[in-house]
C-alpha cells in the first residue's frame, strides 16, 4: 500500500515522460512519412483516375449524343431535300407533258390544215383541167355535130373558135332563159 501511494505522489499525470516524448515523436514522424510517401499519393492517384474515368465517360457520351443529333439533323435535311426534289420533278414532268401535248396538237392541226389545203388545190387543179378538157371536147363535139348538121366544114380555126363561143353563149343564154 505504501509503495502505491509513493508511486502516486511521484506520478503527476500532467508531467511528460522523456522516453515517451521521444518515442511519440519518432513514432508519429515515422507514420507521417510512410503515409505521406506511400499512401496519400496512391489514394490521390486513384481519385484522379476515377475522376478522369467518370469525366471521360461523360464526355464520350456527350460526344456520341451530339453526333447522333447531328446525324439526325442531316438525315432530316436530306429527307426534306429529297421531298422537295421529287415535288419539283413531278411539277416539271407535268409542265413538260402539257407542253408535249400542246405541241402535238398544234402539229396535228397544222398537218390537217396542210392536207386540207393540198386537197383543195388539187381539186381546183383537176376542176380546171376538167373544165379545159371538157371545153375542148365539147367544142370539137359541137363542131363536129354542127358541121355535120350544117354540112359545112369549118376549117378555119378562128372561125371555128368563134362559132364554138357563140354556141356556148347561146347555150348559156338558153340555159339562163330556161
Amino acid at each position, binding site marked *: 500500500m505504501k509503495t502505491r501511494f509513493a508511486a502516486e505522489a511521484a506520478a503527476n499525470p500532467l508531467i511528460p515522460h522523456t522516453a515517451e516524448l521521444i518515442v511519440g515523436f519518432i513514432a508519429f514522424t*515515422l*507514420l*507521417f512519412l510512410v503515409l505521406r510517401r506511400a499512401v496519400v499519393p496512391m*489514394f490521390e492517384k486513384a481519385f484522379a483516375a476515377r475522376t478522369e474515368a467518370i469525366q471521360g465517360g461523360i464526355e464520350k457520351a456527350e460526344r456520341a449524343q451530339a453526333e447522333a443529333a447531328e446525324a439526325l439533323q442531316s438525315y432530316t435535311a436530306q429527307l426534306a431535300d429529297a421531298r422537295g426534289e421529287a415535288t419539283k420533278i413531278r411539277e416539271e414532268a407535268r409542265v413538260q407533258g402539257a407542253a408535249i401535248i400542246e405541241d402535238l396538237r398544234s402539229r396535228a392541226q397544222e398537218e390537217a390544215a396542210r392536207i386540207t389545203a393540198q386537197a383543195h388545190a388539187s381539186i381546183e387543179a383537176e376542176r380546171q383541167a376538167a373544165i379545159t378538157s371538157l371545153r375542148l371536147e365539147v367544142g370539137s363535139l359541137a363542131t363536129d355535130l354542127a358541121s355535120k348538121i350544117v354540112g359545112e366544114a369549118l376549117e378555119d380555126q378562128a372561125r371555128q373558135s368563134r362559132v364554138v363561143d357563140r354556141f356556148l353563149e347561146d347555150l348559156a343564154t338558153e340555159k339562163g332563159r330556161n
Partner: protein
Amino acid sequence: MRAFAFEGGFVPPSTADFNLPPAFGNSEFTTKPILLVFLSVILVSVFFVAASRKALVVPTKLQFAGELIYGFVRNDLGKEIIGAEFMRFVPLLFSLFTFILTNNIFGIVPLLQFPAMSHVSFPYVLAAFPFIVFHWVGIKKQGLGHYLKGIAFMPGVPKAVYVLLTPIEIATFFLVRPLTLSLRLFANMFAGHLLLLVFIMGGDHLIKGVIGLKLVAPFSFTLGIVMTFFEFMVQCLQAYIFTLLSALYIAGALSDEH
C-alpha cells in the same frame, strides 16, 4: 483516498494505475504505452499501404475501406476547412487522425486495453506538430512581423481594448491552443480508462465479496460494458476533434484575418 478503502481492502483505481512497469526488460522504452504506439504505427502503415498500393479505379474492399477514412480526412477535414491549399496539409491531418484513432481504440481492444493517449507525453508531442505547422504557415504567408502583429493587435478593435485583448490573444495562440489540444485528448482518454477501471475492478472486487455484494457485481460489469461502447464513441470523437482543430488553426493562419 483512504476513505474509499473498503473493509475488504478494495483499492479504487487511481492515477498510479497508469504507470505500468516495463512489459519486459528494465527499460523505460519497453512500457506498454510505448509498445502500443509502435504497434499502432505498424498497423496503420500496413493497413493503408496495403489499401492504397494498387490505386485501382474500381477499388477492392480493402482499398474502399482505406479510401473511406482517407476521403473523410481529406475532404471533410482538409478541403472543407482549409480550402484551396488543403492538399499540403492532408498528410499531417491524415496521420494525426489515424494515429490518434488507432491508439484510442487500443483502449477497448481486448488484451491491449490501454489508450496510449492517457499518457500526456503523446498528446503533447502530437499537439506540437500542428502548433509548429500553423505558426510556420502563418509566418510564411504573412511575414513574421505582420503575423505577430495580427495576433497581438487584432485589427478593427478600439485601441484601449488592446490592454486586455493583447495578452489574451498571445496566450491563446502560444499557450492555450497547444495545451487545450493536448490536454483535451489526454483528459478524455485518461478519464475514460479510469471509468472502465472503476466498473470492472469494482465488479471484480464485488464478486469476491459477501452474497449481497455478489448480486450487485453484474450491474457493475454491465455498466463497464456500456461504458466500453461509450468510450468507443469518445475515442472516435476525440481523434476527430483533435484533427478538426488542427485544421482550423492552419486555416486561420492561412487566412489574413483570424
